[in-house]
Structure formats: C-alpha cells, structure tokens
C-alpha cells in the first residue's frame, strides 16, 4: 500500500475523519475520535516543531529585526517538495527497532538519522546543526512535554489547513494569517501578503449543507474570498476547486480538536465547548472552512 506520509497529510486525514464521523450512522464514536485526536496532536506537534526548527535556522543568519518579523509569522521557505521531504518520516521500527526521519539533502541523497538515544523523543542530538529539532517534538514517556517551546503567540494561534493544496496557514487571534507552507515557491511579496489582516469573524458562521457530505470531492461552486485573500491565496488555494480549510486550535489540550456536542447533551452546557464550525470567506468564491476553536 502506498502511504502519503507526512505530518500535514496526517492532519488533513485526521480532520477529515473527525468531520466525517459527524455524519456517520449511530453518532460520533467517542473512542475513535479520541484516537484520531491523538494522531492529530502528534502530527501537529511534529509539524510545529519543524516550523520552529526552520524558523530558528533562518534566525541564525538574519538580523534581529528580520528574524523577529519572520519568527512572528512562522513562515517556511522552500518548495513544497522540500517541505514534504522535511516532514517525511519512514518508520522502520520492525527492521531496526528505531524510527528514522529521512529528509532529502541538497545533494539528493536521503539522510537517515537513527535515533537510538535513551530519550524517546529526541530526534537528534542538540549539537547536530542539520536537524535542529526540539527534543520534545512529541512526547513519549513524558506526557508533560507535549507543549513545545514555541515562540510567542502560540497560544493565540490557529492552524488552518487546506486539504486540497496542503497549504497550512497559521492564524493569530489578532487576525493575521501567516502561510506556513506554500504549494508554490515562495513569492517575494509573500510576506507582505500574509501580513495583511484577515479578520476572522467568529460570530459569523454559515453551515454549508455540503459539509455533511461524507465525500470531500470537488464541488462545482465558487469560493468566496476577501480582498486581502485574493492576491495572497490565489496561487495556494486554487481558483476553481473548492478548498476545505481545516482550522485547528493551536493551544489547549486534546479536546480542542473534537466536538462532543452531538453525543453528549451535557457538553452543550459545559464551559469552553469545542466544536467544529464552518467559516465562509467572503469574496468572489466561497470556501468551506471548518474551524475548531
């Protein structure tokens, strides 16, 4: 079986599973959704840790001002292929008892790092300049290390993932959209585009009836955009295909990803209820967006 295995893909798949579970007969399966959120969190933590490593790497070679700005936006450079390679991990636990993270080096040769150190979470030694990944990329024995040492505003960030183009965008609560991963090579004006405000009106949510369709295939509908989005997102999100934006809360615990409303009447009245909602972006087309908050 082929396996498109990268953290972004796992996030996409996991969120799709959560969404499709809402339309499954018999109601949401609590057990399955709980397990899916574990995968989601694992993938997201790994993905964010790679973001951090990229940000830290670029930070070394830039002036403080530029580094501060870049760090704030958590912007990744490079082609999608390189980014996909960065996130590609081939688990060969069966063969060697280790898991490996393979990433293409500039020479084209895959670099495999076998992680045999005592810490189950460490991907590389801190002295390794090539793989500057935080040790606590995802927790194994120590569950408390789930929270990564992220730069400021991690608690106020939301990660928005386009399922079609695998564009991952980080939204801060101040309304800024930052593209973390571009399907296209980075455009010089990318930073300015993403610096423009895209205010998420949390009070405006329209449920798209097609949301309940189990199939995420393309639907011949226009996607609405804001004026801010048109220029910055047109290349990443595509112009004709429906993009399903999955927004996952960056902070908080496991249950941030999942809504229990449909299965537990008690949760309707619980504080900090987490739910999956749609967000329609205004503009020339419309985008089905599912936001967990």
């Amino acid at each position, binding site marked *: 079986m082929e396996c498109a*295995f990268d953290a972004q893909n796992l996030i996409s798949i996991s969120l799709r599973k959560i969404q499709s579970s809402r339309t499954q007969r018999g*109601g949401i399966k*609590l*057990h399955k959704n709980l397990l899916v959120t574990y995968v989601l969190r*694992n993938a997201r933590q790994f993905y964010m840790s790679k973001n951090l490593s990229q940000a830290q790497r670029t930070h070394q070679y830039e002036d403080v001002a530029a580094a501060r700005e870049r760090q704030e936006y958590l912007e990744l450079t490079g082609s999608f292929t390189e980014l996909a390679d960065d996130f590609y991990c081939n688990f060969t636990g069966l063969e060697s*008892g280790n*898991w490996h993270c393979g990433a293409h080096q500039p020479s084209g040769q895959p670099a495999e790092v076998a992680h045999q150190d005592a810490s189950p979470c460490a991907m590389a030694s801190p002295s390794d300049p090539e793989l500057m990944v935080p040790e606590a990329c*995802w927790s194994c024995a120590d569950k408390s290390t789930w929270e990564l040492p992220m730069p400021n505003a991690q608690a106020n960030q939301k990660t928005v993932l386009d399922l079609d183009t695998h564009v991952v965008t980080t939204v801060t609560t101040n309304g800024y959209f930052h593209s973390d991963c571009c399907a296209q090579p980075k455009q010089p004006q990318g930073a300015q585009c993403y610096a423009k405000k895209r205010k998420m009106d949390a009070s405006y949510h329209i449920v798209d009836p097609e949301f309940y369709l189990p199939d995420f295939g393309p639907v011949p509908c226009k996607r609405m955009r804001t004026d801010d989005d048109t220029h910055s997102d047109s290349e990443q999100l595509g112009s004709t295909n429906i993009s399903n934006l999955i927004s996952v809360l960056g902070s908080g615990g496991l*249950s941030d990803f999942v809504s229990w409303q449909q299965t537990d009447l008690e949760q309707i009245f619980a504080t900090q209820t987490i739910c999956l909602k749609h967000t329609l972006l205004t503009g020339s087309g419309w985008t089905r967006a599912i936001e967990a908050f």
Partner: protein
Amino acid sequence: MAGPGGDMQWCFSQVKGAIDDDVAEADIISTVEFNHTGELLATGDKGGRVVIFQQEIENKNQPQFRSEYNVYSTFQSHEPEFDYLKSLEIEEKINKIRWLPQKNAAQFLLSTNDKTIKLWKISERDKRPEGYNLKEDDGRYKDPNTITSLRVPVLIPMDLMVEASPRRVFANAHTYHINSISVNSDNETYLSADDLRINLWHLEITDRSFNIVDIKPANMEELTEVITAAEFHPHQCNTFVYSSSKGTIRLCDMRASALCDKHSKLFEEPEDPSNRSFFSEIISSISDVKFSHNGRYMMTRDYLSMKIWDLNMENRPVETYQVHEYLRSKLCSLYENDCIFDKFECCWNGNDSVVMTGSYNNFFRMFDRGHRRDVTLEASRENSKPMQVLKPRKVCAGGKRKKDEISVDSLDFNKKILHTAWHPQDNIIAVATTNNLYIFQDKVN
C-alpha cells in the same frame, strides 16, 4: 500444536451465510458466542438479528464425529431507533451477546446494541393443547349452547417450534456506546460498559442500575482515555476488570466501595520507546479483554498483539504474542483506510492452553501457550470441502517470498476476522468473516 495423539490439525466443518461476494451490510456478523455447554452458538449482525445454531448431539459418539450446527432460532433483537433529543440514530447492530447459565428447559441470553440491553428467552415448544371445551381447534369460540359434555384437553406432539421472546429490556442507562456486557458468576447480576461508565444491573430489575465505574472527567477537555471492554471474573462475583484505550487494565473489587473509580490493581506495560510513532496511542488501545476459564489469567488484545496477564503481576504480561507484527510498517496506510481502528476479539480454549484471535485476509491465529507454537489459518470458501484439513498460512514480511507465502502487500484488508469463539469443552471453533460463519474442528485421528 500438540494435542491428544500428536499435532492437532484443524478441519473445515461448516460455513453459514451467503455465498455472494456482494455483502449486505445488515448481514455483517458483529458478535459470536457459544453458550456454556457449547451446544448452542449465537451470532449477532449489524442488522440487529440474532441467529442461534444448535449442535447435533446424537452423532457425538460415532466414529469420525463431525459436529453439525444447524439453525435453531432466528429473531430480530434490536431495531434502529432515533433519539429525538440528540437527533441521533441508534444503530441496531448487535455489539455483544452473552449467554446466561441454564437453569431450566429454556435458554436465556443478553444481547445489546449501542444503548439498550435485552434479555431473551429461547424456549422450545413441541406439544400443543387440543380438546378445549370452549374453543375450536382453530381458536374460534364455540357457541356455549352446543356444548353437551366436558372433556379434559390433552397435549399432542407437534413439530418443534423455537420461540424467542424478550423478557427484559434494560434501557436508558448509557449515554455513550455500549461496548461490553458480562454476566456475573452469581447469576443474578451483570455489568454493561460504555465508553465512560460501567453499570451494574440485576437481571430482574430493569428500571434502575448502579453505576460502578465513571471515568468521565468533570471537564471533557481533560478526557484522555475511554473504556474499551469489561468483564466479570469467572468465579469471584466481586471482581471485574475493564480495559482502556491507553492500554491499561484495571481490576476492581466491588467490596471496596460502591463506586469503583479507584482500582484494586492496575495492569500496564511500559511502552517500548523504540516503537514510538504517530499511531502509538491507537495500536496500544485494548480492543478485548477475557479472563481465562480458571480465573488466574486474563488476556488482552491490542491492534498488533495479544498479552496474557497473571492477575498477581501488574507490571508486565507474562506472555506476549505478536499477531501480525508485519503491519507495524503499514500503520499509516491502515490509518488512512480506517483498518487501524478495527477491534479484534480474542478467546481461550476450554483448558486455557491455547488462545486465538483474528487478523486480515480472513486469517486467524492460534497460539499454543504450553508448546510455544503458533499457527496461521485461513477461513475461505476455497478450503471448504468437508473435513478438509486447513493448511497453515504464512505471511512474508519482507525479502524473497517463498512458495505458498503471501506478501503483506497482497493481504486483503477488507477481509478481516474480528470475532472468534471456542467451544467451552471441545476443539470446535467458530470464526466469523465479514458475513460468513465458519466452523472448524480438530481432525479426529
């Protein structure tokens, strides 16, 4: 596996179900259970039906004994329902069937779907009354003026009729999906478990139950695990265990407190850090827990392995059997196609010497604990000639594939054996594929 007279060989006995490759979802078998004597074999399906097979006893003493199970009773146990308050449809799928020990001529079983447990009485009727004074034989009432004499009605033989009637309905006690039911050894109570709670019932009382385990956190944001299976100890009426999605098993003593949130024992094996992956939580989730018949051990099934635990040792299992370790490198794909969420069951043989569980490609695995041997067999129509000996199968995990081996990539993950059952006394097993029930028995030499 060594048995009486040498290595045991398994032979095909029967197959029940449709031959068509086009499987109706309602016909998918969801549970299989022998009764305490092994004479009856019950199956439940996604359509809410229960089918009971009965073993022909009269051939048992003959040479080349071949047990035959024939349909004994079929009835609709559960119907689809709709919870209007939550706008949820409640599936009619039978999640579990558990037989009650037989007390009289009738048989009793508990069947459950996601929300409701029912107690069914299965009784035989082979006589009917005849000669009523006030009624005709067809049931029409007579004109009293035409009655000139009195007679005593008599019972005359009739064709055997098996009746299934619901005697109790235990409803409205579970907010979440019921995954387990287990009859207590006191034959008066039973437990039902859903994702977050376990309730204790009395078989005679339907309007109330006692909550004995509640792991629902005050804030659902703090939810980290759910209950996946629960079972009463086979002899100690105060003891039960429940497994969790985190791979732990908790043994509880009902004498300690009314609410058994604090376990008496916690069985947990530390995770091997070298096997850590994105899917570690999923594959460590326990899908089934079964006590051994002698009550000294319990067995747990997670996605890749089976573990035997000594109830006196909590820190690690005494035995671990890898069911299909070759799938470890395929977890990503299995996650994509949802197979990683499959819940495999496991079972003991009558004397607790052999354990069995299912796998993919209609394979099932047996592990002989005493002789440390295991075998992989296949339930398929191609091997369904009467008394045909099953040939051991082997999966090639890597490298050059030998003859008669099947490669991992060739496995059909749509053909899965989730439910198996072992006759309590004899070497007869029932293996459920998607919509067929295979019955195998050991070859009589």
